[in-house]
């Protein structure tokens, strides 16, 4: 998820600490903590599967793009950096397929993009 979960958790820690202090107007405290609770729930939901999702997607993208390499460093930040690089290449590949009128290639890319949204789907998704 973007922004990245660790950066968000650090900020939410500050939000909770600020609201634990006296003097915060009650409606603002309720609003900030309610929103914080929802964000923590989403972080909890995606955390366990985050690395697996990125590894799965990076493999699919490498296969589609004939990109050599592998995810050797399994830290989420490294997996995400690799994912960004591959999705950048996917945009270039899609433009090339559109310009060439290569329908089969375009359909393969759309299939991967569909799959990417299934991997990222959260329980409270509106679509």
């Amino acid at each position, binding site marked *: 998820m973007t922004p990245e979960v660790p950066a968000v958790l650090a*900020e939410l820690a500050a939000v909770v600490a600020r609201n634990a202090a006296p003097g915060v107007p009650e409606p603002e405290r309720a609003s900030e903590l309610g929103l914080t609770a929802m964000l923590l729930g989403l972080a909890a939901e995606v955390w366990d599967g985050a690395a697996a999702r990125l590894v799965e997607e990076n493999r699919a993208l490498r296969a589609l793009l004939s990109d050599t390499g592998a995810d050797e460093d399994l830290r989420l930040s490294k997996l995400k950096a690799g994912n960004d690089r591959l999705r950048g290449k996917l*945009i270039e590949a899609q433009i090339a397929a559109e310009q060439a009128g290569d329908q089969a290639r375009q359909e393969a890319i759309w299939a991967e993009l569909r799959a990417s949204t299934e991997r990222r789907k959260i329980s409270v998704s509106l679509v």
Partner: protein
Amino acid sequence: MTDHPLAPRVAAYLATKIPGASDLTVEAMERISGGASRETYRFRARWREAGESRERRMILRRDPPASLIETERRVEFAAYRAFHGSAVPVPEMLWLEEDPAHLDHPFFIAEELAGLQASPQMLLAGGYDAALPKVAERKWTILGEIAKADPKALGLTEVIPAPPLDGCWRRELDYWEAVFDRDQAEPLPIARAAIRWLRAHPPPPAQKLSVVHGDYRTGNFLYDEAGEIHGVLDWEMAHLGDPLEDLAWGFNPIWEFGRGLAGGLLPRERAIAIWEQASGLKADPQALHWWILFNCVKGQAIWVGSAGAFIKGGNKAPIMIYPAWWLLNAQDRAILKVMGKL
């Protein structure tokens, strides 16, 4: 309740704006949740004037350090003022203040329309089911009135740039694509593909130049238990352009709230019929499709901008994170759906 730290500063400002007022106090000030593009507070002002006690409930809308939507508050203020007292219900705007000396950031103050609800979750949770047909009828009738209005007669062409009829789509698409270029933190292949499609298949010229609210959806109007709409809110993205843009924003699948109905309220065809009746305009299906896909892209640009404001440190409030986490992937799925890919 703890007095809000802004209250004495707001009181000091109001004392300069209400002639003859004395003993002016600001009470019961509280921030209204949400408001990622402006900080919104409600409060009650009390004062003495001509020997009598006066009281008025008001709303303060203040610019945050960095916003989900970067907009011109002068335009927002002018749009509210233009429709006040018309068939488009809006709260009365009282004062616009662009000097940050008073409350650190520019702001405006409006009357509060009290005792009403705006929450789409509350509206769609079951308790208002009997009122939903009325809400829907009023929602798209009012949008038709906005579309029908003459921006020049409203005085808005003096404050808001008027694009040519055949340039409305390009101006909007250019603007929101630039938001991606500026704020995206990661590659966005689905949104970029949609933008390429939109450029390759432009819509026909607008049938007229209209005021475009820019965020007209369930959640941005005040309703009562009988289903009447008393105030259209959140005009911060108001501009002049193609009236189909406004109709299509509400058909972004995100705003179905998972119910498979336009705005969570009724079938799309019925909404279009109400709008056409009220506006006297036609919703050409192909043009409307273009604008729906455009609005999916615009929505994604807003959620990307929200994430960008957090990442760049301009605004670290939780309200900036939630739209990005909740909606970025859902908006991608909405784009796929509108493009017939899902």
